[in-house]
C-alpha cells in the first residue's frame, strides 16, 4: 500500500518536475525580461511543489533516500511524467500552449486532490492550487494574446496546438497505481473531469480565435516510463551535477 502511494505521488510530481525543468531552460532566454521572470516564477512554483511531494515520498520509503535521490538519480524509465511536459521549448507558442494544456489539467487535479483522505496529499494540493490558479490565468491570457494577436502569432500558436494536441489524452489514462490510490480514497479519478477539461480548453481556444483540433490519434507512454526522444537530453542536463558530484550541496 505504501509502495503504491509512493508510485502515485511520482505520477503527480514528475509532471511538475519535468515541466519545471523545461521552463527553467528558458531562464535568461524569455522573449522579454518581464516574461522571463514570469516563466521562472512558474518554474520555481512547480519545483516547490515537487519538493513537498518528494519529501513525503522519501519519508514513506523503506529505503534511506532523500528528495534529491528521487528527483535526480532515477533512470529514464523510472520517470512517469506524461509526454506533454517533456516536449521541447520549440518557440514561445509551444511554451505557452504546453503550459496552457497542462495548467488546465493541473488545476482540476489539485481541486479534487484537496479532498484526498491522505492528509499530506490534501495539504500539498491546498497549498499548490493558489499558485496553479495563477499559472492557469497566465497561460490562458497568453493563448488569447497570441491566438488573437497578429497573423504570425496566430499561425504559430495554432501549429503548437495542433502538434501538442496528441499528448493531451494521456493526462486522463489511469495507471495501476492510480486505480489503487482511487480505490483507497487517496487518489483522484482524473477521468471524471476529462469532459470538463476539453470543454474548458475548447472555450479558451475559441476565444483565442484558434481551431480545436479534431484528430483522433493520441500518443501515450510517459506514465509507463516510455518517453519521447527528448527526455534523455532533458535528464542529462538535469542530472549532470548530482551524477558528477554525488551528494553535492551548496
Amino acid at each position, binding site marked *: 500500500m505504501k509502495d503504491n502511494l509512493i508510485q502515485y505521488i511520482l505520477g503527480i510530481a514528475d509532471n511538475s518536475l519535468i515541466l519545471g525543468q523545461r521552463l527553467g531552460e528558458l531562464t535568461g532566454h524569455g522573449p522579454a525580461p*518581464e*516574461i522571463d521572470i*514570469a516563466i521562472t*516564477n512558474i518554474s520555481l512554483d512547480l519545483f516547490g511543489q515537487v519538493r513537498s511531494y518528494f519529501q513525503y515520498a522519501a519519508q514513506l520509503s523503506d529505503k534511506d533516500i532523500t528528495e534529491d535521490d528521487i528527483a535526480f538519480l532515477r533512470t529514464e524509465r523510472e520517470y512517469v511524467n506524461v509526454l506533454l511536459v517533456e516536449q521541447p521549448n520549440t518557440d514561445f507558442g509551444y511554451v505557452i500552449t504546453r503550459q496552457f494544456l497542462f495548467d488546465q489539467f493541473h488545476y482540476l487535479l489539485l481541486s479534487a486532490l484537496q479532498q484526498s483522505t491522505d492528509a499530506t496529499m490534501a495539504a500539498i494540493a491546498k497549498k499548490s492550487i493558489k499558485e496553479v490558479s495563477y499559472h492557469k490565468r497566465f497561460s490562458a*491570457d497568453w493563448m488569447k494574446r497570441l491566438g488573437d494577436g497578429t497573423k504570425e502569432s496566430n499561425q504559430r500558436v495554432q501549429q503548437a496546438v495542433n502538434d501538442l494536441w496528441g499528448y493531451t489524452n494521456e493526462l486522463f489514462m489511469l495507471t495501476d497505481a492510480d486505480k489503487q490510490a482511487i480505490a483507497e480514497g487517496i487518489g483522484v479519478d482524473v477521468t471524471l473531469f476529462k469532459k470538463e477539461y476539453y470543454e474548458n480548453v475548447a472555450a479558451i481556444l475559441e476565444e483565442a480565435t484558434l481551431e480545436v483540433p479534431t484528430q483522433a490519434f493520441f500518443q501515450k507512454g510517459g506514465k509507463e516510463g516510455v518517453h519521447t526522444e527528448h527526455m534523455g537530453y532533458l535528464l542529462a542536463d538535469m542530472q549532470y551535477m548530482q551524477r558528477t558530484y554525488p551528494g553535492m550541496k551548496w
Partner: protein
Amino acid sequence: MSDKKEQKKNWPLWEVFVRSKNGLEHRHFGSLHAADAAMALENARDVYTRRNEGVSIWVVESKHITASNPEHNGELFEPANDKVYRHPTFYDLPDEVKHM
C-alpha cells in the same frame, strides 16, 4: 504611422506603484514594459511582488505622467532653501505630546 510601427516593435513603458501593507500609501517601485494595462499588472506582479512585497498594485503608462523639468530646478526648489521658518521647528513641545 511611425508611432504605430514603434509600438509594434517595443511595448510601451509603465510605472508601477505598490502598496506594501494595508493602511500605507502606494509607493513607486519601478517601471516595466507591457503591451497593455492588463499585461502591465501581471508583469508587475511577477517582477515586483514575488518576494511578498505587496497587497495592491497600480500601473500607469509612463507617458501619462507629467514631470517637472530638471532645468527649472533652480527657480522651482532653491527659493525654499533659506526659508527655515517654514519648518515647524521653533516650538518647544511638551514631553506629553507624542507622534509629532
